[in-house]
């Protein structure tokens, strides 16, 4: 009984499958006459000739040039100031400090760089430090970190990843926290900005050190071991500070929200730069109100606590002040690129037009599209 019903079912199921959609006999090998199988799918067949691509070139040109102009203007409206404080020159205020190649000099060397802004900086000003010739993208350097340690994983804290070698354990066999070459080479200059009133008084400009890292980094990727409210000193018990650091990681800041692994300067540094010349966000100068510019025109002094040696690899250190627009920092390149490409497209369009006019005009009249 079961078997018979099963058979009937199978027959039923089998039959429509066997006779193809074309109604072909079940055993015939005749191929189905479908557009796909016969390779007759309806298709758009563009033919690239001067006449057909001509509009594309003009359209691209016409779109790109205005975009380029817009970008260029936007970029030009961004104010940016940059000062190199490496101290290569003898005349440079930081020359003396730069002679110190040591990472762990106990006496902080300070230097003061005066500069003046020709134009007031409206809105928020972003303060960057820039390094040149610093290959943060070196293959072995990039690898040299332990993300789970930075995420607060306690086991990783005690035994960091092998990737951190040779900055994994200190000489007394304690695990280094944070381990790895990136952390080890953390930028440790301190920059302070003073505004010099026309009357000569020096006011320190308040620098906000929060919000300079990615939100996800600060809140997801980087976590202190032992939870957010734990005693950091206790949490980092049994670990060693990176070789080049002056103080352990839990003393990076006094603000518990910005200390330890979630110190934003640290987070910013850990995000390795793409290119050997890079800048990293250091502080934000919040605009106070809409009436006064954030940084008024005038003289300023940059106080640098010079710790970070770059002379060994002929690096440069810069301090950059910049406003930003919707497209980021000041970079006229993209605007110029758009304008150039747009112009080239336009020019090629004209060339094609000529070609088309000379050799394809007969055809264009006849292309029965």
């Amino acid at each position, binding site marked *: 009984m079961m078997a018979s019903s099963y058979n009937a079912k199978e027959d039923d199921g089998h039959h429509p499958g066997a006779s193809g959609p074309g109604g072909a006999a079940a055993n015939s*090998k*005749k*191929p189905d006459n479908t*557009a796909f199988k*016969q*390779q007759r799918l309806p*298709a*758009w*067949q*563009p*033919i*690239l*000739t*001067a006449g057909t*691509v001509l509009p594309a*070139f003009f359209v691209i040109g016409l779109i790109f040039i205005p975009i380029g102009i817009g*970008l260029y203007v936007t970029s030009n409206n961004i104010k940016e100031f940059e000062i190199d404080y490496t101290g290569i020159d003898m005349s440079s205020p930081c020359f003396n400090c730069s002679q110190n190649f040591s990472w762990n000099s106990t006496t902080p060397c300070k230097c003061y760089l005066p500069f003046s802004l020709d134009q007031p900086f409206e809105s928020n000003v972003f303060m*960057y430090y820039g390094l040149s010739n610093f290959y*943060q*993208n*070196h*293959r072995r*350097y990039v*690898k*040299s970190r332990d*993300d789970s340690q930075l*995420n607060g*994983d306690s086991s990783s804290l005690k035994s960091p990843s092998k990737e951190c070698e*040779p*900055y994994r354990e200190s000489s007394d066999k304690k695990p280094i926290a944070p381990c790895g*070459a990136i952390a080890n*080479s953390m930028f440790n200059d301190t920059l302070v900005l003073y505004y010099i009133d026309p009357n000569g008084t020096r006011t320190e400009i308040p620098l906000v050190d929060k919000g300079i890292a990615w939100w996800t980094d600060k809140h*997801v*990727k980087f976590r202190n071991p032992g939870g957010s409210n734990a005693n950091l000193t206790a949490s980092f018990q049994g670990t060693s500070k990176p070789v080049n650091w002056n103080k352990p990681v839990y003393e990076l800041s006094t603000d518990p929200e910005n200390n330890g692994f979630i110190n934003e300067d640290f987070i910013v540094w850990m*995000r*390795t*730069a*793409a*290119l*050997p*010349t*890079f800048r990293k*966000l250091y502080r934000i100068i919040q605009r106070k109100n809409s009436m006064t510019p954030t940084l008024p025109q005038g003289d300023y002094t940059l106080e640098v606590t010079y710790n970070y040696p770059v002379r060994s*690899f002929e690096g440069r250190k810069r301090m950059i002040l910049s406003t930003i627009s919707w497209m980021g*920092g000041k*970079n006229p390149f*993209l605007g110029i690129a*758009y304008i150039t490409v747009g112009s*080239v*497209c336009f020019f090629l369009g004209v060339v*094609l037009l000529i*070609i*088309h006019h*000379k*050799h394809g005009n*007969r*055809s264009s*009249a006849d*292309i*029965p599209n």
Partner: protein
Amino acid sequence: MDPVQAWCWSQPEKDQQRQVIRSFIDLDCEFDPFKYNSIIECEKPNNDLNRFRGYIVHRSGRRDGLYKENLLLRGCTVRNTEEAVGIVIYAGHETKAMLNNNGPRYKRSKLERQMNVDVFWCVIILLIMCLFTAIGHGLWLFQYGDKRPVFDVPSPDGMDLSPVLSAIYLFLTMIIVFQVLIPISLFVSIEIVKICQVYFIHQDMDLYDEETDSHLQCRALNITEDLGQMQYIFSDKTGTLTENKMVFRRCTVAGVEYSHDANAKRLAMYQEVDSEEEDCTSHGGTLPRRDSVTSHQSGKVVLRSQSTKSHRRTGSRAEAKRASILSKHTAFSSPMEKDITPDPQLLDKVNDGASQMEVMRFHSQSLSQIPSDLSDIIDFFIALTICNTVVVSSPNQPRQKVRRFELKSPVKTIEDFIKRFTPSRLTSGSNSSSLSSLVTNRSSSHRGCSSVLSSPSADSTLNKLDEERRTAANTNANATGTLDHAFSPVPASLDGARSPWAAAMAEGELRYEAESPDEAALVYAARAYKCSLVGRLPDQVTVELPHLGKLTFELLHTLGFDSTRKRMSVVVKHPLTDQITVYTKGADSVIMDLIKPPPTDNPKGKRQRKILHKTQNYLNLYAADGLRTLCIAKKVMSKEEYARWLRCHLEAETAIQGREQLLFQSALRLETNLHLLGATGIEDRLQDGVPETIDALRKAGLQIWVLTGDKQETAINIAYACKLLDPEEEIITLNADSQEACAVLLEESLHYIQSKFLCGSSPPAHPSATKQQQQQQQQQFSAFHLSPFSCSPAKSSSSTSSSAASSGPFLVHRLGLVIDGRTLAYALDRSLEDKFLAVARSCRSVLCCRSTPLQKSMVVKLVRNKLKVMTMAIGDGANDVSMIQVADVGVGISGQEGMQAVMASDFAMPRFQYLQKLLLVHGHWCYSRLANMILYFFYKNAMFVALIFWYQFYCGFSGSAMIDQWYLIFFNLMFSAFPQLITGTLDKDVSAETLQELPQLYMSGQNSEEYKPYMFWMNMIDAFYQSLVCFFIPYFAYADSNVDLFTWGTPIITLALFTILLHLGIETKTWTWMNWASIAFSVALFFTVALCYNASCPTCYTPSNPYWTMQRLLGDPLFYLLCFITPFTAVLPRYFYRACQGSLFPGPVQVGRQLDKLPAETRRNLLSLQWMKVGSFGSLFGPRPSFFPFPRGCGPRSRQPHPSSSSSSSSSSSASSTSKKPEAPDSTLNSNSLETWTRCPSSKPTVNQHTTSAGGVQQQDSGQPPSSPSPSASSPHPDSKGEPLVPPTDTDTLPYTKEPKRARGAPPSPSSMDPPAFEVVELPSDFRPLGWMTSTPLLAPQPVPQHEGKAGNAQGGAQRRDYEGETSPMHRLLPKEGGAHRAQGSDCEKEHALKTTLL
């Protein structure tokens, strides 16, 4: 593999008769494997299918020879018997079939070979890049000296590596980082695409044969793209070009020809049905597609046309289908072959003769009184009926059972002979007492077992008894009173319901199973005259004749057909005359030599001679009609003669050593002094669409050689029938007897060709003769305008393969070369092969007759290796297997001759005509798709890798990558994989219709135009450019910003993805929804994967740790700005280049695509016109439609020969005579002169022959002013340039010079000279689209005139002036040519001098 205890038919290749080992015949009990105990000694397993030697050693010590007739090969179909008992001799991998199967030869397609070179280049590029990076890293490290910077991380143990060591490590690292450049995934993708291509080829309805319910099979999956690059096709004739369905057409008996007009009409009717069918199928086939281009109604139309098509098809093919079902049981029988309408006159005579014989027999008179012509006719039909190995079966009882009780072996011993051929009245009394114990006839009642076999002496007594009984039975049965038992027309045992023959007769239809279709055709023909074969047993043949009823011929011997003797014979005892008669059937050439020379003195002899003469005439006529001819002869032997012969023959048969040779000699002794009965003409019908296919393939630039085992005349005739040879072209025939003669012949031919074509140049334009001038212009024009398309495969091969040693002409001329097997053997000798090739390659068609399978493969190998061309071999039989295996692509026709060719082939198809679509459409598509995909792959990988390479400059050459490793892995695997696969599978550069209608487009594949070495480098350069763009636009956009490594790298890979997709978009020719979908899918997949990946885990994926990168990027306007500008900038140059290419110098394929775009109506008109034109080109200047308004190029050249032909026939004959004169003294050439003959298969004898004598005689027909239409052979040529030789400026001679080949020496063959035929199209002036189509810009100097000319032409003859004006650029170009021309002239002078010294 076993000897069988029955007569059976095997079908390894053809039906072949197998025999039971003699001792087994005697073994009339059931074969009992447990009791049987003998030793078989045989050869070691070998692969020779045609040889088997061994013997059985019985327990008695008797040895029985085993031959190939006793062996059943693996894979055979046993027919005609229901059971077979045998002993396995070879099994498994030792079987001959397996030993013959060398396993699939792994073929690499040409494209892949090319590709591999480029893969090799990729490796080199990779190594260079790695080396560069390594050195860079070393230097970078070196600059820091001892003070290691903080970012240079020491090795884990804290040691600093030296720069050199670091560099070495980095080199190895970079190999891993850059290894994407080696396109491993390419190989996978190629395989996928090929499988899809194979799938589509399988699915093509046009390649499906309803009749056999089979479609084209791709047995080799990896060489589909080779189909698009073929240059030479080597074809078998029988079964490939022809259907291998032999149809009896006409015969001549006793010097009287019976034309069988009714039969011819009937056949014509078949043909009509076929052609009508073709019409409707082609209609049905093209209509839907055409419509689908235009509108949405297409669906309906498709359906309707499809239904009508199938309806008609089934209707008209019903008969064929029935036949095919039938033929599953019976080979070689279709209604066309079977139903023969007899010639009434002959039928009357047969009836007449038979009735007279009946009367004679009744009155016991000697049959010699019958008029000789009537008896000849009867004998003729008897010969047709019995002189074969046809076996009869009836439909309801397909396997004729062997009745043991009446089975007698053929005469095996003298004693047997004496016993059987001494009238029984003499022997019956004394019976067989005198017979020795060796008598081996066996009786049905005898149920002895194997012991009988082992103890023949015991057997003998039983035999004797049996003999008596049987004789008695026979005499009783023949109650008619005939004295001789052998005379009995119908043995009693045959009558009655038991007899299958009788049953079959009741059924009304007998089936004949024959070794070859010829035999079947003849038997069917005889049956039409009521002489039907009703039964055949090993020892007797029963024939039913009108009036006479059934006659049983005792079959004494069958001397089978072999290719050396070219004939077969049967020795029978004629039941009417009681004479021993030999009927011989064979090739006319051999039979005519064996005819007994008629006595010269008496009238009978005279009559005989007359008959001989007439028959020979008719034979020639048949051959000219393309019929296969066979001569039928007979010989009456006296008993003494026979006995003498038999003695020798039996010795031969029993010999173990050299049996074949002895049998051969024995047969030669028998087949002498024959009496000619008549001759038959059998038509080997061409398959459907063969001429059209050959025509199209030839226009596609394919050289087609036919290699056949058939004889020369037949082959030539078939060649004409299938348009392989053109009536108007000259044929060089090479028949040589010796190596030296062959060498001389080849030398002669080479000189002939050179003198005719190589130095040929048209005289300069004469200002006064306007017509001539015009023609000159046209010639130059056509010669010129063809030049950009260096299409001739021969030419291209010559340019590519300098190794081809022959200095001969490389262009293909309007010459046909016919060479026979013997000469071919000489020509294939190492010393001559170059010359042979030089001659052969300059001929348009080559026909090798009488060639053995080995020669076939040698020819293919020679051409393939020496000319470095792509070869395809196509055949259907086992004799083509070697050729199929040797060729680059082997195609097997799954026809009537079994499966061996199919097994060896790469592609198997049911019909030859499918070759057209397979090559022109699928081949082209496969090639162009794959070529483009490979190029794209190289580009893609290079572009991708280069991104990382550029980055090394900014990361201290440290081997760092800004792109996340998972993106690196997935990029090739997922993100960019699908669109290219879709494009590689589905892209169609030109539609199937256009490809078929313009076969010239195929040449792009032949010349590897889609994939040339420079293209690889262009692609590499483009890849590097694009990667530069993709790298540096983000670089500058993010320069000196706070971007981090992977936030910067992710846009770059996104841009790279967009760029390669855009690039693919530019290279994609047809956009179906699948293309769109795949691209959209790719992009979507990338972003989905990126977003998921970047959101999945904040701490995993070290070192990149791209957490939330993509999410942030999507919120960054800069990212979008980059995505917008970079891909456009990257593909801009390619886009611009493609646009310019499309406008300024479109290749043929592009023009084909433009044609595709035209609306259906216009396109159809255009194509039909073009087709016509192409046809006129293609049929090599065949009759041009007279309404072609302008005499461009070939126009006048094709037409002029006809008026001048009659006048030139004399001149040409004189020319030929002069040309032959110098040869005449050469004694070696007497027998094998170099023939140049012109063929006109139709009745119209247009002699269009131009024989340029070697002495520098030139002849000019059309090129010359009409005032001197018949050039005298010695007239000094008015060539201002003083060229010694000016060949005929006729159809076949475009000015041909060696050096300016490209400029003007366009090959005259259509294949090479028809550039994509869009050029010259006559259209009504309202057909402007044509102008568009042909409107190609004037920038490039070369294509200018042609296109302008075209345009002018396009507007009809009225615009002649325009046209002339537009051709003027050509004139400007002429001087240059002139220079070359002069150079050529001196060349020719040298040649000439050489020649004169030679002669």
